[in-house]
């Protein structure tokens, strides 16, 4: 019983959107709309699922004083403060012009941290360009030539060299790049569809977890 019910639920929940895709009758579309609205709520709970395991991992680290436990403590404290600002406060700008704490911490805490973390990659791309990207075979050579044309074509310098340079870059994007991207999209779509079908017919059961 513990296995059959989830399998039936999964097959039912996956088949229904497919049926609603093809059958436009009033009854089917109305429940389809309700199911979509319910899923918005269930997805909200699912979004927070990872937090429980995060708290477990960090609490264990702090309790057992494993190496680097102070950082685990910082994660928990920062989490608690931000969650409290969210659950008990509001978001956006206060009527008197300041920001509610939830939005303030996001704008002056989270935003600079995330942006800077990703901007560091510009340095790594530069150093890798110098030390790692080599024309070691035909494939890498084609790749680097394509990259150089695009990089030159996409900045004003390209046009200064010759007005046709930006057009060559655009041509590469419009034809060869489109062809390859299309092949990858079709391949990836088939892979994802195959995975969906395996779950829909009950061959694969990712929802059963370790039990």
């Amino acid at each position, binding site marked *: 019983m513990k296995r059959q019910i989830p399998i039936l*639920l*999964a097959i*039912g*929940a996956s088949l229904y*959107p497919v049926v609603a*895709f093809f059958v436009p009758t009033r009854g089917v579309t109305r429940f389809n709309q309700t199911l979509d609205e*319910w899923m*918005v*709520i269930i997805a*909200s*709970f*699912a979004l*927070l699922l990872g937090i*429980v395991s995060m708290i477990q991992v960090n609490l264990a680290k702090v309790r057992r004083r494993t190496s680097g436990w102070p*950082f685990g403590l910082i994660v928990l*404290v*920062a*989490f*608690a*403060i*931000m969650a*409290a*600002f*969210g659950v008990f406060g509001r978001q956006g700008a206060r009527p008197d012009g300041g920001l509610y704490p*939830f939005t*303030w911490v996001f*704008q*002056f*805490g*989270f935003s*600079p941290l995330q942006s*800077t*973390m*990703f901007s560091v*990659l*510009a340095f790594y*791309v530069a150093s890798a*360009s110098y030390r790692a990207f080599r024309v070691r075979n*035909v494939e890498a050579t*084609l*790749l680097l030539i*394509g990259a150089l044309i*695009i*990089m030159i074509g*996409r900045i004003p310098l390209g046009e200064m060299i010759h007005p046709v340079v930006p057009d060559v870059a655009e041509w*590469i994007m419009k*034809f*060869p790049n*489109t*062809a*390859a*991207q*299309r*092949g*990858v999209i079709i391949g990836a*779509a088939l892979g994802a569809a195959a995975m969906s079908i395996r*779950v*829909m017919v009950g061959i694969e059961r990712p*929802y059963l*977890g370790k039990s």
Partner: protein
Amino acid sequence: MHLQLPGFGEWVAAFLTLCIFSFLYRDNVLYRIAESIFAGISFGYYVGLAKLNTLDPNLFRPLLGDFGAHWSLLIPFALGLLLYVRYIPKLAWISNWSLAVYIGYYIGVNLLQKLHGDILPQARGTMIPLTGGWGAVLGGIIVFVGVVTVLIYFFFSSPHRGPLKPAARLGIYFLMISFGASFGYTVMGRVSLLIGRLTFLVHDWARPLLLSLMGG
């Protein structure tokens, strides 16, 4: 324009920005502190976000405001809560029920999104009439040949021998050109982020600080 000292917010943002940049020199405790604050805030942000933007307006307020009309919202509410029962060993099997509904729904939606929204239009977009100006014809041939050879490259049911060998070879060349384009664009993207951060450090923090110090 009256430049006063950078506000408290700018100071916090600048400090955290420099902590992350310090990783470029080498991994250090300041970076790890900033990294932990980042992890903590992002988890806390999800909690506030879900509550303020979805759970309140779509679930709690309708249920508390007009229960009669919205009692059916108890079903998604129950399914959502059941997800958390997996952390109680004895009852973990019940949480698989709501996980099955959640995963099943998105599997069904994803199947048609890929077949109907990706494969059909992309296949149709490749059935290009090789007519019209030589530019369009050349472009059409390149797209057609490119898609066909890339699909052949990712074909695993027969060895790349006979006519398939040059076709697969041509397919990999198309892939490499598009990877080159992605490489170029990625470099552009990463550099834009760096520009964003340095512009903030210079214009929103360093300049007001220096000018107001010099201004006395």
